[in-house]
């Protein structure tokens, strides 16, 4: 092409914006010349969430425009196109700007429909479409005590809710016999009405406005209904529908549909090959769509064609607008409503199963084929939990595995309707509609991709990372597939214990067992294995007052805990004294240095802000530690499934930027939680400001200071699968922070699976972060008092385990390299020198020494 493709987008609403976004995503925005004209005085904003403006009155929050705008795209705000000259292929805007185009995309949306009744233009009458409309409504409602909303559809009910929140007593007047007439049927409408009325809104159906009445100043004072009744109202909102904004098309000679809308084919192109139409203004094969999802699909269709042109491919290969999915799930004034498929039972022979409950205000209707084998559609009001599964079943057209009556009552019946339903779905059925993930993708992730739990499926496929409502189905699918593959689905520890770590923990805590023998004889079978023994050891170690080397317990440990040190590749051990918060005095440094020198150890500063000493033989450990303990150090638990460290940045004490004293808090926390044994290691960090020098967001619990206090983040980790911690609570006082961390840690200790990091634990928690928050902050399980108490017990009973070893000859006796030759050093340990320190000798560096060589 001689020049870059010139694309003019007429309209900067949600769909017009989406189209530009797609061009940017596909790297077309810079290769084409894109110019956008928006009629409103604001750039694109989320009109679907428009009503949220009334929570906080911050229109900026709705903006869809990225911070940097559209790179390479020229955006004209508040300057609508007034003329489309298809002959010269130019558009002219209100400000007089004329632009040529190679491709014009009409995305002019709709305009609100106001019924032609007398008085409808009086001050006090409003429509409900733009942010400016809502601002005007907010201002006018200050003088209104009563309001009328004309239109009982989605927008009308939102408007009524908004008026109610503004303190206006509201009537909703709907022409049809029921509310939401396009989405719900009569029965659903009746239940919806009960719920809406329970909110204090007066609902009139089968009711028309005949006139808006005005007072002496000409302001709205009420409405007169057909039949004569008048309703007092100082504010009237018309939310009675929209009409496609197709005036440009008409004036430029393009065909429009019978009820309006620019006529286009399945490729969203008008009869003029250079002009497209997308979104609410388009009439695709005779239908105008009032939902944003079909509009987004149309944007994709046109973007595909642009891409094809730019990259030289054939336009015919590009996508066509597929059969749109008109299923909807809404939350309207707190009421869940969903409808899908043939919701009104118009198919030949269709039968309807109904559950209409005016006691609980719930309505469920399923439309099935005449033989009851296929689900065709449905309407749900008040309880839409079954929606994801039902929608999939209806869309896939698969044969139902069981009596459809069981689908009507998902909670009851053996096994529930869910699992059988998921099994019956065909592979192409979409399980996660937010991320468009099919059943076969999830199955492949489990069977071939090695995903064995919901968390990994989420990470691999993206399913469940949108609204999350499909997670129960994903979970069923994972269990089903694992079971089919013969894999162990249960959370049982191993063949010796049928219960999960969590269950075992509770049992041990309640029964007060403190040896493995007690535990396995009472709650398990056999003699145990290298799976359950460390877990039991960890559980026992988590009980207050327990030492990992007590009696039997020592034998349960793997080598790390067995010597309270980390074994290295050459058979030597590392020694890590605790340095709380990473703060160490010069005397402390000197003490550590002299120990390292005396024993010839290699020293390094670790990522956890402390010092590690390497090259110690097992039998040297007590001597090393007795020096460290004498110098005031304690075990750093670098070897255990326990709290490691709480890192800190410099903080407000010294740093120019710090807003809180992060060091003091880190020290306080580390001293509080030291010694806490847990399902897996726990790492933490405290940063004194948003620059986050302590890397707190990569920690199991991380704290970042704010002007007002502390923000608490949980569930992060570094390592093999890095994960950022999520914000649990913000602007906490130190006391609140400590209370929540106490509970978080104790809950984790009690409830997580064996060797499950906090991140994995949170990923697999039903309800996720929200549930965790409700348990910890709102005490939704009623266990906080107990968690607090358990943590207090831990704090009160803490003692340094290395000191305990040094004081106990029985424990000391374990520290030898060879059980049957206690005084003999391991001759295989050989060091060489590097950069002034020791390191283990490589194989080529060893000289053969007889096995009986003396110790070093």
């Amino acid at each position, binding site marked *: 092409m001689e020049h870059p493709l010139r694309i003019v987008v007429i309209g900067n609403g949600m769909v017009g914006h989406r189209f530009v976004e797609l061009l940017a995503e596909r790297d077309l925005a810079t290769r084409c010349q894109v110019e956008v004209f928006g009629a409103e005085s604001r750039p694109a904003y989320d009109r679907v969430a428009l009503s949220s403006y009334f929570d906080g009155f911050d229109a900026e929050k709705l903006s869809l425009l990225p911070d940097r705008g559209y790179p390479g795209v020229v955006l004209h705000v508040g300057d609508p196109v007034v003329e489309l000259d298809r002959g010269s292929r130019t558009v002219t805007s209100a400000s007089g700007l004329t632009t040529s185009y190679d491709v014009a995309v009409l995305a002019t949306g709709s305009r609100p429909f106001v019924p032609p009744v007398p008085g409808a233009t009086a001050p006090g009458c409003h429509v409900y479409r733009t942010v400016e409309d809502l601002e005007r409504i907010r201002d006018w409602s200050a003088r209104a005590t009563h309001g009328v909303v004309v239109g009982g559809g989605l927008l009308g009910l939102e408007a009524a809710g908004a008026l109610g929140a503004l303190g206006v007593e509201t009537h909703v007047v709907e022409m049809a016999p029921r509310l939401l007439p396009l989405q719900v049927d009569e029965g659903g409408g009746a239940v919806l009405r*009960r719920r809406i009325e329970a909110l204090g809104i007066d609902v009139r159906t089968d009711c028309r406005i005949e006139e808006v009445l005005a007072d002496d100043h000409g302001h709205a004072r009420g409405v007169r209904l057909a039949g004569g009744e008048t309703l007092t109202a100082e504010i009237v909102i018309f939310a009675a529908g929209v009409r496609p904004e197709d005036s440009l098309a008409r004036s430029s000679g393009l065909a429009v549909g019978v009820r309006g809308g620019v006529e286009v084919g399945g490729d969203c192109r008008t009869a003029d090959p250079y002009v497209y139409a997308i979104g609410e203004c388009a009439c695709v094969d005779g239908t105008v769509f009032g939902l944003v999802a079909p509009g987004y699909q149309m944007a994709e269709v046109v973007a595909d064609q642009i891409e094809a042109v730019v990259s030289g491919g054939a336009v015919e290969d590009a996508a066509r607008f597929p059969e749109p999915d008109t299923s909807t799930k809404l939350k309207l004034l707190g009421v869940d409503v969903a409808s899908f498929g043939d919701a009104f039972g118009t198919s030949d022979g269709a*039968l309807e199963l109904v559950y209409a*409950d005016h*006691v609980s205000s719930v309505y469920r209707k399923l439309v099935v084929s005449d033989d009851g084998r296929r689900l065709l559609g449905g309407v749900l009001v008040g309880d839409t939990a079954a929606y994801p599964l039902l929608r999939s079943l209806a869309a896939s057209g698969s044969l139902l595995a069981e009596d459809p009556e069981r689908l009507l009552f998902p909670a*009851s019946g053996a096994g529930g309707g869910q699992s059988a339903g998921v099994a019956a779905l065909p592979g192409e059925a979409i399980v996660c509609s937010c991320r468009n993930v099919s059943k076969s993708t999830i199955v492949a992730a489990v069977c071939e991709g090695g995903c064995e739990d919901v968390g990994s499926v989420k990470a691999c496929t993206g399913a469940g990372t949108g609204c999350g409502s499909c997670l129960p189905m994903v979970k069923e699918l994972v269990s089903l597939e694992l079971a089919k593959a013969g894999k162990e689905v249960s959370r049982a520890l191993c063949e010796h214990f049928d219960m999960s770590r969590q269950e075992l923990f509770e049992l041990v805590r309640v029964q007060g067992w403190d040896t493995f023998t007690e535990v396995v004889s009472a709650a398990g079978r056999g003699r145990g294995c290298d799976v359950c023994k460390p877990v039991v050891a960890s559980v026992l170690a988590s009980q207050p007052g327990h030492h990992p080397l007590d009696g039997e317990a020592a034998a349960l440990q793997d080598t790390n805990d067995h010597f309270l040190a980390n074994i290295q590749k050459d058979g030597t051990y590392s020694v890590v004294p605790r340095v709380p918060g990473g703060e160490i005095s010069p005397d402390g440094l000197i003490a550590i240095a002299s120990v390292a020198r005396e024993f010839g150890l290699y020293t390094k500063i670790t990522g956890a802000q402390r010092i590690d000493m390497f090259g110690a033989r097992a039998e040297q450990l007590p001597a090393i530690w007795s020096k460290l303990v004498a110098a005031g150090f304690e075990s750093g638990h670098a070897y255990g499934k326990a709290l490691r460290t709480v890192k800190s940045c410099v903080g407000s004490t010294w740093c120019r930027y710090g807003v809180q004293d992060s060091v003091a808090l880190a020290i306080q926390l580390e001293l509080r939680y030291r010694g806490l044994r847990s399902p897996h290691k726990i790492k933490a960090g405290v940063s004194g400001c948003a620059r986050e020098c302590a890397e707190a967001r990569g920690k199991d619990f991380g704290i970042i200071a704010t002007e007002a206090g502390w923000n608490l983040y949980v569930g992060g980790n570094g390592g093999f699968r890095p994960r950022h911690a999520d914000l649990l609570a913000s602007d906490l006082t130190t006391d609140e922070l400590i209370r929540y961390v106490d509970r978080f840690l104790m809950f984790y200790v009690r409830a997580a699976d064996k060797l499950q990091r906090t991140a994995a634990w949170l990923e697999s928690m039903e309800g996720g972060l929200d549930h965790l928050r409700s348990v910890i902050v709102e005490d939704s399980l009623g266990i906080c008092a107990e968690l607090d108490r358990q943590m207090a017990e831990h704090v009160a009973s803490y003692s340094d385990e290395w000191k305990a070893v040094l004081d106990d000859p029985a424990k000391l006796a374990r520290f030898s390299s060879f059980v049957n030759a206690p005084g003999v050093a391991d001759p295989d340990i050989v060091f060489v020198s590097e950069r002034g320190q020791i390191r283990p000798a490589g194989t080529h560096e060893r000289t053969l020494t007889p096995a009986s060589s003396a110790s070093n």
Partner: protein
Amino acid sequence: MKQSLVVVGSGSSPYHLVSALVGRGATDQLSVTVVSPEPVGPYERALFPSVVAGRRRAAELVSRPAEWYAEHGVSLRLGLRMTELDRARREVRLSDGTVLHYDRLVLAVGSKPLSVPSWVGPGSAGAGRPPVFTLSDLAGLASLSARAATARSAVVVGGGPSGVEIAWALAARGLAVDLVEAASRLMPSLLDAEAAQVMAARLSEAGIVVHPDSVATGASRVGDGDGDGDEVGGVAIVRRTASPDGVDAPARERQEWVAGDMVVLACGTVADAAAAAAAGLEVTSAGIVVDGSLRTSDPCIYAVGDCTDRSRQAGCSPEVDLQQAEALAAVLTGKQAPYSEPGLDVQLATPGLDVVVMGEQGAFVAPPAPAATATPAATPAATAYMRNPLRGIYRAVTVEDGVLRRAVLVGDATAAPQLRAVRRSVMPLACQPVDLIGAAIGPNGVAAPECDRSSAADTVTKQTANTAALRLVPSLEEAST
């Protein structure tokens, strides 16, 4: 010297009363005389539909032979009506002229047809029209049964519980049945439109054609149209339909004619309270007024069964007959057990089609239109229902102030015992309506989680279960363990 007790009547309630009296050894204190207008002693009427269906013969109706009365010291007077009641002298005059003195009298005279259509002349079959039957007594039952054995079709006039039972029984016998009902749905005082529709669908699957909004105007014979002089019997009906010209336009009427070799009238009954009224006892349109001891306004006269107002309010069901009879037997033998009906509890005698309605009569007819926001304290009555057209099932419960007021089950009554127990415990529901009528209660009868409380409820449930057995068991003693 024993007190004399005279019992007048021949249906279920005197049958159960006498059984209970004998069971309690009342004949030691009382000299009991039973006066029956029929040629046999009192019998269990609830079995009529099974005789109509041809599953049993009239002679197999549960009853007691004359010898039994003799053995137990009960005097039995057959084929006699009470023609006069003299309360001052405590005497009843019988149709043969004899006079019986009573210390205490029990009226168990049942009910009689509410109205007899004008086109039904005297006699069961007149020339020029098919025979017309009613089920008011054994004679009627016998002749109806005999005719049903050879008929190919029948018309049942009246779509209340009785009409539905008779239509179902005749269809079971292989007849083609038309069921004519004046209201716009069957059983209009017991079922709402949805329930009635589900029931009608089941009836039509069984070969019963339902004609709502229709009134029978005459029975006749017409030529069968093949020119050989044969005639076919049938009923002319007039069907009122709403005019398509709008709500205010007068309804249209359409004349139709439905074939039938026999016609059965089931147009409703009314208490046979004429004699009581004539004697000055307190009587309402529902029937003879009785208190919690089943005593009338005369302290020496009791009434029991369909002739009482209480029975009518409770739906005149066999359950009520049994419970009233047992209560009265207790009263008559000196044990004053306070009695109150458990409220409406109707279960149609239609084997293969469950229809159960229980609760307060009139608690609802149609699912109520959503009420305006209630006052904070009270929760107005609201209904929850489910409908499964694939299996022809409908289940509904009405809850008010958290208490179960009413339940309707069509097509599947496995939830009935639990609903009865819940209703009778009269305590607020601990569960949601969905737990009572959801799919957990399936054809296997798997019950939903326990909702009822108190052992009293359990006892009543057991009793109710026992009464089902009683209908087929001749002796009360055998069933009462």
